[in-house]
């Protein structure tokens, strides 16, 4: 065992569904990968629509659902959704900031048989953490939530996004996760999509800082084995090889946006010309097999050189489409994070420029427009 599942044909069933239940979130993290145009509450799917989507997902072969956002606890029907998924025997993963959860609320989620909680932290130092989140008291609240979760016995993952303001304390955040009783910790260097891309010049650490953080966490990983699992996401702009796009576009997972749009990935809406279908109008099975957006970059047929003839094409699938688009203006190009891309040098150039010392510039906090 421990063999990751291998998918034979291109259109085999998805393993995971990421449900962005809402874009509402009390925090304003400047690295958020949500789109700049957030969906308003009034346009969200209602409870019945979500329950139908999860039923269809189970039928399609989805094994794990990730309840995300925004802040999923901002939905009043969260417990109902979890209970429904549990009845379908779907594995439920709640991805939360913790804000908006009460002790009684956590107990209700536990009774509804929630399988796993992933709680974000912004830093291991209170003042810095609250400043990054743009929310006074967020840090203290998160500590409370972590304790409530651990007390119920639901396994806890702590998730920390690494950037300029906390890059010196990456190992501190692993230690904090251990102290909180987490079984798993994700140390993820910022991926620059949505708000993160907008704030890139505020977030980018220097190459030296990123490298130091990387090796410190790697050194700690071995020491804490058996205590906590460390999942480490590399800094893209300093990498030689691209990240495999979600294990392949339209291959393992799908996202449903708060309004029901089915996306191959959270950033896919940034790619112009893609036609997305809505789960209000189509079944998930139909969307997965037939919708133009899912078929656009499926497999390797769409590739150009150097990807097309590259031996890695079935491993990383040419890297990230959304990044190729954001940086090169061409979603079909090789992800510039790859050292084989003719434009690879631009990554280091951007990183160098954007990690320059800051003047008076401040974060553009993730906020919703009042009226849309």
């Amino acid at each position, binding site marked *: *065992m*421990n*063999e*990751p*599942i291998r998918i034979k044909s291109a259109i*085999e*069933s998805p*393993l995971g569904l990421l449900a962005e239940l809402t874009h509402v979130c009390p925090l304003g993290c400047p690295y958020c990968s949500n789109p700049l145009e957030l969906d308003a509450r009034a346009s969200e799917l209602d409870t019945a629509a979500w329950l139908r989507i999860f039923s269809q997902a189970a039928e*399609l*072969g989805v*094994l*794990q659902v990730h309840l995300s956002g925004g802040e999923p606890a901002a939905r009043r029907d969260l417990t109902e959704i979890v209970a429904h998924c549990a009845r379908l*025997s779907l*594995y439920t*993963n709640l991805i939360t900031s913790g804000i908006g959860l009460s002790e009684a609320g956590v107990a209700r989620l536990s009774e509804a048989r929630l*399988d*796993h909680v*992933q709680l974000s932290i912004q830093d291991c130092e209170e003042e810095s953490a609250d400043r990054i989140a743009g929310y006074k008291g967020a840090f203290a609240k998160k500590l409370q939530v972590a304790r409530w979760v651990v007390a119920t*016995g*639901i*396994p806890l*993952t702590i998730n920390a996004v690494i950037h300029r303001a906390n890059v010196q304390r990456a190992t501190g955040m692993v230690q904090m996760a251990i102290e909180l009783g987490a*079984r*798993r910790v994700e140390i993820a260097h910022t991926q620059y999509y949505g708000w993160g891309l907008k704030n890139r010049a505020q977030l980018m650490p220097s190459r030296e800082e990123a490298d130091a953080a990387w090796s410190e966490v790697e050194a700690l990983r*071995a020491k804490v*084995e*058996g*205590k*906590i*699992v460390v*999942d480490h996401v590399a800094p893209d702009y300093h990498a030689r090889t691209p990240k495999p796009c979600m294990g392949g576009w339209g291959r393992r997972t799908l996202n449903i946006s708060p309004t029901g749009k089915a996306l191959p990935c959270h950033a896919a809406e940034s790619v112009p010309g893609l036609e997305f279908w809505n789960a209000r109008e189509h079944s998930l099975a139909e969307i997965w097999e037939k919708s133009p957006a899912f078929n656009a970059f499926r497999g390797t047929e769409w590739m150009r050189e150097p990807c097309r003839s590259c031996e890695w094409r079935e491993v990383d699938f040419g890297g990230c489409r959304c990044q190729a688009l954001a940086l090169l203006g061409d979603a079909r190009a090789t992800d510039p994070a790859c050292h084989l891309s003719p434009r690879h040098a631009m990554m280091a150039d951007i990183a160098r420029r954007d990690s320059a010392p800051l003047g008076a510039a401040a974060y553009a906090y993730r906020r919703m427009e009042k009226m849309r």
Partner: protein
Amino acid sequence: MSAGEEISGEARPRLPRGVRLKFDEARGGTVLLAPERVVRADAVAVAILERCDGTRTLNKLVEELCEVYKGDAKRIEADVRALLADLAAKRMLDL
């Protein structure tokens, strides 16, 4: 338990909450579901993990498997220990 330590024969291995076996109808076979992980479990792994419910000791578990599989007890014990140690290191099993 930390890495490298021998698991005691008296330990009572248990799949913690949030780690569970599931029959995978769409693709066939059984999978072990855990936080951000989906791993295939072959028939032997399933036989072992189904017995990791916190009631049996490791010794008892090996004894039961020897009856079912009629194999060499030493080998079976080694297989069981290897699987359990691996999962414990990944925090997918409590001892």
